């Protein structure tokens, strides 16, 4: 290894990146922008669902029932309308996403001990939102039923209302959320985004940087000179690894500063893991660049190799544990999962080297394998 040649290559690469405004933006602006866009846009919390009420009964009990929705923080009350027909246009242009229809004789039936059916209409265009909304409706309805039952027991058996409530619900659930006490999805998402962005941006940069030389023909300067394969790969990729390390710090700052994610773990361990991770993802870009000839093809291949596995198999959307065995197996093949665990552990759980060394080692092995394959694939005297 001739360090002067590596330095010459890295220096040249760095200057090119800095002079090319588009490339520079790609290097530093795009990762932060991705973090902001996804961080604000990909909130999985379902709150403030706009809704309207049709109350055909207009009784004390129907008012009591509908107020449970109106007072909930999960729903945004947008008013009463006279009939179901007036709901259609509201639902159609998304001014409301949920409606509740109380039938006539609601109070009369209930008081007489007959069941009453309340209709709820939920906008099903986003199944995730719809099923969450359904959960809220069922919970509010169950609470109302429980109170009705408790009131009945209290009246029927002449016990105190507290005792009646306990009789009506013999088993109660006591819930406490760990690590993310308020169950803010932003915390988990911002953490996972650090993983996602560092999976996507470095390979893109690297692949474009290498393929650009192939496309223009300047790669022949390398082929025709005495620089060795290892020197070329090291010098060429050093700036990209460096940029990605800086980006990992920027993303960390955005996660903690802007999205308010707590960082409870070991900063040094997390930083070193990030360095290993970006070395690994840079290697993915390098591999992609050696397989294809044009920048367009390089971009397509990097998308396939990075975004898809890291969204599907990192635990970002679906926890690895709840995947089928085949999915779990595939998840273990991609580096995204390991770093997701490291990031979540470091940010939210406050664990470090002791618990996560295995994951960091897996990433290091992954990086080494990628770089070795690339080294083997790169030839200074190719066949075409």
């Amino acid at each position, binding site marked *: 290894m*001739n360090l*002067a*040649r590596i*330095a*010459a*290559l890295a*220096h*040249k690469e760095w*200057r*090119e990146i800095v*002079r*090319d405004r588009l490339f520079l933006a790609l290097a530093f602006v795009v990762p932060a922008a991705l973090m902001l866009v996804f961080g604000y846009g990909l909130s999985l919390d379902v709150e403030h669902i706009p809704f309207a009420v049709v109350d055909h009964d207009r009784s004390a009990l129907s008012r009591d029932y509908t107020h449970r929705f109106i007072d909930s923080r999960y729903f945004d009350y947008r008013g009463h309308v006279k009939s179901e027909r007036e709901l259609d246009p509201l639902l159609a242009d998304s001014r409301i996403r949920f409606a509740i229809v109380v039938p006539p004789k609601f109070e009369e039936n209930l008081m007489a001990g007959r069941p009453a059916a309340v209709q709820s209409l939920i906008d099903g265009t986003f199944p995730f939102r719809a099923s969450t909304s359904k959960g809220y409706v069922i919970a509010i309805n169950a609470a109302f039923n429980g109170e009705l039952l408790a009131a009945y027991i209290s009246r029927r058996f002449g016990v105190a209302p507290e005792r009646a409530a306990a009789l009506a619900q013999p088993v109660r659930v006591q819930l406490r959320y760990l690590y993310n006490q308020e169950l803010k999805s932003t915390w988990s998402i911002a953490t996972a985004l650090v993983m996602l962005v560092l999976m996507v941006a470095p390979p893109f940069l690297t692949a474009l940087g290498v393929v650009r030389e192939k496309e*223009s*023909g*300047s790669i*022949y*300067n*390398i*082929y*025709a*000179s*005495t*620089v*060795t394969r290892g020197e070329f790969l090291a010098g060429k990729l050093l700036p990209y690894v460096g940029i990605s390390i800086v980006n990992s710090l920027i993303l960390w700052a955005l996660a903690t500063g802007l999205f308010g994610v707590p960082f409870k773990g070991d900063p040094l361990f997390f930083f070193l893991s990030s360095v290993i991770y970006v070395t690994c993802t840079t290697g993915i870009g390098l591999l992609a660049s050696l397989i294809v000839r044009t920048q367009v093809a390089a971009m397509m291949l990097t998308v396939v190799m990075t975004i898809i596995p890291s969204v599907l198999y990192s635990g970002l959307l679906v926890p690895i544990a709840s995947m089928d065995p085949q999915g779990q197996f595939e998840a273990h093949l991609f580096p995204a999962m390991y770093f997701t665990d490291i990031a979540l552990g470091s940010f939210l759980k406050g664990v470090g080297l002791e618990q996560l060394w295995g994951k960091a080692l897996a990433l290091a092995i992954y990086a080494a394998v990628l770089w070795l394959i690339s080294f083997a694939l790169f*030839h*200074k*005297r*190719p*066949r*075409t």
Partner: protein
Amino acid sequence: MGEAAPLTPAPAVRVQGFGKRYRRQAAVAGVDLEVRRGEIYGLIGPDGAGKSSLMKAVAGVLAFEEGSIEMFGIRIDSEAAAERVKGRLGFMPQGLGLNLYPELSVEENIDFFARLRGVPAAEIAARKAKLLAMTRLDRFTGRPMKHLSGGMKQKLGLVCTLIHEPELIVLDEPTTGVDPVSRRDFWAILAELLREKGITALISTAYMDEAERFHRLSLMHGGRVLASGEPDAIRARTPGSVVELEAEPQVEALDRIQASLAQAESVGPRLRVFVDDAAPEAAVGTVAGLLKGLSLRDLHATTPDLEDAFVALLRRQRLVEERVVAKPRAGDGDPPGDDVAILAKDLTRDFDGFRAVDRASFTVHQGDIFGLVGANGAGKTTLIKMLTGILPPSDGEGRVAGADMHFAAQAIKARIGYTSQAFSLYQDLSVLENLRLYARIYGVARHAAGERIEQVAELTGLTGRERQLAGRLPLGIRQRLALACALVHRPRILFLDEPTSGVDPIGRRRFWDILVHLARVEQVAILITTHYMSEAEHCDRLALMHAGRIVADDPPAALKQALREEAGELLEVATDRPLAAMALLEQAGFAGVALFGRHIHLFARDAHTATREIQTILAGRGIGLASVTPRPPSLEDVFVYRITALEQGEQRL
């Protein structure tokens, strides 16, 4: 050729039985050649001849299957073996400045190459200063490479290739796409640098007229070497004479000649005929005999040039495809209406404070072939864009096919045909599908389209290839397809932007046969740009562009006459030490001194006085003088003289 005497060091390059295939397609086969130390060896051939594959293999950047390559006696048969010689080698790949880094400055580019090649830091500054001074790039060291002109990029590429002082340099088409002035400059600098350090060079080019720059060369075609040796020896392989004449009517004269002699073409108003195995007088007699009864003028014989020899070699080796017959058809074409096809008056185009075209005025008549020549960036493309209605002019006016270009851009587009340098057809469609597509795009009526497509296919020699995919056609035939597509809607005017770039000489001749037929028989007006000065001779009028202005606009003969009147006679000086002689003659104040292979070209008012003067100057320094011969100036001489004069004028300002 290379009869190696004992004790001579191994040749710089020895190639034996070289062959390279891509997948199953053979690009090169059976190539033998030997480059001796210190010589400039040329590979000449059109695109697709296999030059690049051979050069890359020699430079050790391409693996190959057949044969062997030795460099300085070391056999290059593996990546590791190639590494062993790379330190002694410089390689410049094809493409104008494409191996340089556009965002880096001139100096940064050179520094990078120097450090990559491990040039000692102490030496970098001195070598850089010297190379920059010789290439006259020293004023532009801080300029980003992307803002250099084509010629400057090429020179920077050369500096970067030479910075580690290699023993052998491999330059792949260094002059393609560079204007004649820059080309000449490049060759002069290269010759000087190589001589000074005793560097060996292997250089490829698609320009036949650059053959004189090489000590020895190989002519390549279709992946094979047709002939190797010194330029004169290659010419001697195809004995014969070239006869030039003017004949009236030209179309009939050409038909008569082509009936019995295969190698004949019209060059502007002249005809040029190669007569096999004939001495000059006999050749003139043969041609005169064929043209009995026609009015002939200026009938004379000249020596064949390398392009003539190349075509003759191909013909003798039966590598020529069947002749394209472009016969006139009675009643074909519209009657010529308005005689003026293009009228440009003070056409001007500004881009953000930069004037790309400056008050261009000219007229093209129906049936004229109008050539536009000039360096890259002289404004040719912008001018064509305005004339074809793609770009509105900032100032001035023009009428194209009777339509005012300010108001009727759409009408203009319907009445013209346009072929760009880049292959603009659909590669995955067949010839016929491409033609049908263009017929529909231009709104040719469905019932008329079939017949018209048949006509243009016949005219451009595509009959029989209708089912072939456009992408699979050889370059020369693809360009004819592009021309056919531009002709489908019977345009009265054709715009052709470097249509023959990279096409082999035979392909170019075919192309011009068709153009001449279109102009002479169908009265189509043709506006064409080219970098081949030999092609410019075909034009009826030639406009020379420089810095957005048209600086000359005349028939080729008049341009040459004007040069004679202005600069004097063109003399070719043959000496045993051309570079030293050149410097002396320049000092002595001769105009237009330039190196042409081993000969020197210069201008002199009076040939006799000048000859005596040259004899005295060279004898004083002990330089042997073989001959001083007056030569008719070529269009390249005109171009170089005019542009150099203009550039010198600008520098004085």
